[in-house]
């Protein structure tokens, strides 16, 4: 939660009040408004509300181990939600991100196993494949001018079919073979899927990576030229191009960043479960997009932050696991999830409107 400190306003601060304002509140209000106008404040409040709610209704959540579990679930969504959010700020979105995770895991697993190579060979090849998928998405988008919905819907279907067909062709089964006894597996597991002890609680390494990537993404968005480019191409592509922003490069690289995220999460799945089911991942892309939108990124682009999706993913993980910790009737699970997410999004919207109304 200490991540809030690193967040900077992603929108320009409102102009300072004129010296003639003397009704006594003006010194305070701009600061509060400035805070509230941040894209991540709504989701921060929503996440706190959900957390407090479950801390009260579900006693097991108060345990450190449970919190580590909730954060783990959040991190596997959150690591992908970050590049998906950056892409969304850049004005595009990617429907292939869910199955791309599985594509990456399948590639690494099959390359290592079938060629009996050190697993790192598979890991590197999978990275190349994932980046290539991103490159293809971005290149198609830029070359054809089609909306990203269509381009990535195509990629989504292609990957979904290819995952299944190629796995079946290569292994003769629909799941990959167990690679846990192969050379390099333990090193790779240490990097992608290990856990460490914090005061008697087993914490998954993905949580650390998640926060590191979030800090990195925040820095890139707010402190680098590339970050400005992302906001610019998402806000208005033509004006961005007119003032010299490399639109093509920015869009393609954002898609490749999603590819990188898919690779990372894919490697986590491979090294924590040893095998991969080729039919998985369908539907996850919407969860990543939802986490980004709940996190304050606009579907239309040009607005958002990297820290918002962190809370968005946390909220998703919290609600999903909180319902189980609370021991509620499991038949209602999806309905609870929908209601709580909608509620959180409304808080988000309300906060943003209150903040921008003067």
């Amino acid at each position, binding site marked *: 939660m200490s991540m809030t400190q690193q967040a900077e306003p992603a929108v320009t601060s409102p102009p300072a009040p004129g010296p003639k304002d003397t009704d006594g509140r003006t010194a305070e209000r701009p600061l509060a408004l400035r805070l509230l106008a941040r894209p991540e404040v709504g989701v921060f409040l929503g996440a706190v509300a959900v957390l407090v709610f479950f801390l009260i209704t579900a006693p097991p959540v108060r345990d450190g181990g449970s919190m580590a579990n*909730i954060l783990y679930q959040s991190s596997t969504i959150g690591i992908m939600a970050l590049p998906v959010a950056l892409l969304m700020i850049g004005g595009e979105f990617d429907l292939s991100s869910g199955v791309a995770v599985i594509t990456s895991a399948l590639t690494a697993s099959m390359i290592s196993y079938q060629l009996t*190579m050190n697993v790192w060979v598979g890991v590197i090849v999978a990275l190349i494949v994932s980046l290539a998928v991103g490159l293809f998405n971005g290149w198609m988008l830029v070359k054809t001018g089609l909306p990203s919905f269509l381009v990535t819907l195509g990629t989504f279907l292609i990957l979904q079919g290819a995952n299944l067909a190629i796995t079946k062709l290569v292994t003769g089964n*629909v*799941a990959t*073979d167990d*690679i846990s006894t192969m*050379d390099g597996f333990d090193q790779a597991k240490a990097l992608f899927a290990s856990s460490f002890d914090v005061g008697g609680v087993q914490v998954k390494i993905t949580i650390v990576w998640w926060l590191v990537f979030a800090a990195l993404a925040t820095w890139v968005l707010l402190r680098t030229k590339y970050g400005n480019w992302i906001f610019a191409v998402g806000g208005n592509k033509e004006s961005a191009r007119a003032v010299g922003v490399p639109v093509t490069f920015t869009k393609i690289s954002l898609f490749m960043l999603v590819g990188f995220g898919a690779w990372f999460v894919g490697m986590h799945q491979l090294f*924590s479960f040893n095998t991969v089911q080729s039919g998985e991942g369908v*539907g996850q892309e919407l969860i990543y997009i939802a986490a980004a939108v709940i996190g304050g990124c606009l579907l239309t682009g040009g607005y958002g932050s990297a820290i918002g999706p962190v809370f968005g993913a946390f909220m998703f993980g919290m609600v999903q696991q909180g319902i189980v910790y609370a021991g509620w009737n499991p038949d209602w699970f999806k309905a609870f999830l929908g209601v709580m997410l909608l509620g959180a999004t409304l808080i988000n919207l309300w906060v943003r409107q209150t903040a921008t109304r003067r």
Partner: protein
Amino acid sequence: MDRSSHSRSRRMAPLVALAAAAALTLAGCSSGSGGKKAEESAEGAAAGKANTPRMTVALVTHQSPGDTFWDIVRKGAEAAAAKDNVKLIYSADPSAGVQANLVQNAIDQKVDGIAVTLAKPDALKDVIAKAKAANIPVVGLNSGVSEWQKLGLMEFFGQDETVAGEALGKRLNEAGAKKAVCVIQEQGNIGLTQRCDGVEKTFSGTVETLNVNGTDMPSVKSTITAKLAEDKAIDYVVTLGAPFALTAAQAVSESGSGAKVATFDLNKDLTGAISKGSIEFAVDQQPYLQGYLAIDSLWLYKNNGNYMGGGEQPVLTGPAFVDKSNVDAVAGFAAKGTR
């Protein structure tokens, strides 16, 4: 001409060198353990081939893409087809309406027999009647043990999900379990619900159900971990598919809970887990047999007029238990992806 080809070859030189270097590096990276090289090259259950006239059979299931279970059913069907000189047309779709269309498609192709799963019997009623009107024999497999006769199917091969659940419940009683959680990976699937209901019927302790998102393994793991933390009294986790059992075993060992894991269905990694002891036992419905018998029965009917099960009773392929005592015998077949 000469110049350009020369310059091209010069431009290619670094690329060739790079490729060669990459190949050399890769050669140094081979794994000393595991992998394809360690896998024994084993032959499938191939027998001779019948010299009966070539016939065409359609197998239409409600498989969702990439499910290990259905892959085994299909392998059984393919083995029977190869042996019986049958051309097998396999098609599948989890949505009932599309499955009905696929059966219609088979009728239009004038196949010699249809094998179909009855996950949603009502949706298939009309199209099965059409097949009968066209004099195409239809057999059922896997799901629909209580419906197949009503729909006028010739024979049925499968397991009664409720009976399988009841058998597992009894087994839990023998193991002295007090509280079990039944993990459903696809909310609203009738067969899966019947399994949990069957367990509840015979198990003397209490059963709770837990819905998980089957397409997202990390989430399955977190949710099971959460359930074990929420209710410390749980001493058995019952999963309804092999991949979920392996994930449940991980969740149990990492959460430090003393719970044990039992599951429906089998795959090759699961046999390893049973012999290691991280999973107690599996209820196998022998999917290979379901696919194999469905095709073989249509061949027998066409060539010798036989009915398996006498046309009155279903042919049950399960529940067969796999535990530590018999896992070694099963493991070899499971490794080939046929059991």
